[in-house]
């Protein structure tokens, strides 16, 4: 009974010296209504214990008390802030990487463009585009290397971007020489007759540059040769210049990133 305090010292000596025997005697099944009720209560108690243990084990938020919930909420908010910071850092990193990718793609495109223009300038790639074809017939052998050089200068003045003399691609270092047999060589290669010059650039400008009074056409005719200038919408220069590695000149610093 739940009133043990009321009887602190029971009549133990009078009730038999063996508590175990007493317990066994009371434990014998007795088919009384009260015993059945007690059994039912014990069953209920066992059920409640098991249920409560299960509930405690699987306890979730709804069983927590208010201050625990507040603490949990606080913790979750702290975590939230920390993770938000992390998100920002990672997003900044991602943006940085993305812009890096875009930047490197742009740099690659610029480099490719630069490679193209440098290749055309250096004569290492074939070029095509609008331009003029100049044919100089020289039956009297009056055309000299300086005349062809003048023609080249005139073409360059007029904005020619790629020029080929016969099958010699004209680059910055191209030179013309008079051969002993009356022919002309460009870069050491004898030019075939008639002299054929292909220049890519603005066709109209190039053609008019040739016809300037006192210019190339006049000079050529003066030495008894004939000149024929043909404009064309699409010319192709197949001649290539072979680059030699410079023996003496070395670049001073990084080449400037911008191309012409």
């Amino acid at each position, binding site marked *: 009974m739940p009133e043990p305090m009321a009887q602190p010292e*029971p009549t133990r000596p009078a*009730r038999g010296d063996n508590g175990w025997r007493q317990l066994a005697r009371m434990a014998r099944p007795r088919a009384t209504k*009260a015993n059945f009720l007690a*059994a039912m209560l*014990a*069953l209920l108690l066992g059920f*409640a214990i098991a249920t409560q243990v*299960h509930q405690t084990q699987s306890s979730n938020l*709804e069983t927590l008390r208010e201050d625990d919930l507040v603490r949990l909420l606080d913790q979750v908010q702290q975590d939230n802030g920390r993770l938000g910071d992390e998100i920002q850092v990672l997003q900044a990193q991602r943006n940085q990487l993305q812009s890096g990718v875009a930047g490197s793609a742009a740099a690659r495109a610029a480099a490719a463009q630069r490679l193209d223009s440098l290749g055309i300038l250096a004569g290492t790639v074939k070029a095509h585009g609008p331009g003029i074809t100049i044919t100089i017939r020289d039956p009297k052998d009056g055309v000299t290397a300086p005349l062809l050089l003048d023609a080249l200068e005139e073409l360059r003045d007029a904005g020619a971007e790629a020029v080929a003399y016969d099958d010699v691609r004209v680059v910055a270092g191209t030179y013309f020489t008079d051969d002993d047999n009356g022919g002309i060589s460009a870069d050491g290669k004898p030019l075939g007759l008639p002299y054929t010059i292909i220049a890519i650039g603005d066709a109209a400008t190039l053609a008019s540059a040739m016809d300037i009074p006192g210019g190339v056409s006049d000079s050529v005719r003066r030495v008894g040769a004939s000149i024929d200038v043909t404009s064309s919408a699409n010319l192709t220069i197949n001649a290539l210049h072979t680059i030699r590695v410079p023996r003496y000149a070395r670049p001073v610093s990084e080449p400037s990133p911008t191309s012409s």
Partner: protein
Amino acid sequence: MIPVIGLIVGIAIGVFLQPDVPLGLQPYLPIAVIAALDAVFGAVRAVLDGIFNDKVFVISFLSNVVVAAFIVFLGDKLGVGSQLSTGVVVVLGVRIFSNVASIRRHLFHA
């Protein structure tokens, strides 16, 4: 003996069914279990004292559970639910300890 079997069967049922405690009962069930345990230990002690009575046990069991639950309910209403729960658990725990001590003296004479 029969109540002991009942207790074991109840635990088995609870373990197998794994029922969810209804929300309204959740604050009261732990306290009710402690109170019922107090009643059970008190009954064992009464058996050893030779003053056990089935009817008294049933009534004390039920009244213990009801009073404990009511105290917690009242504490919740008054805003001191957690403190009062702790107090009830302490009181019942002390009683369980003293009952167990008495049982121990009966059984082991120590």
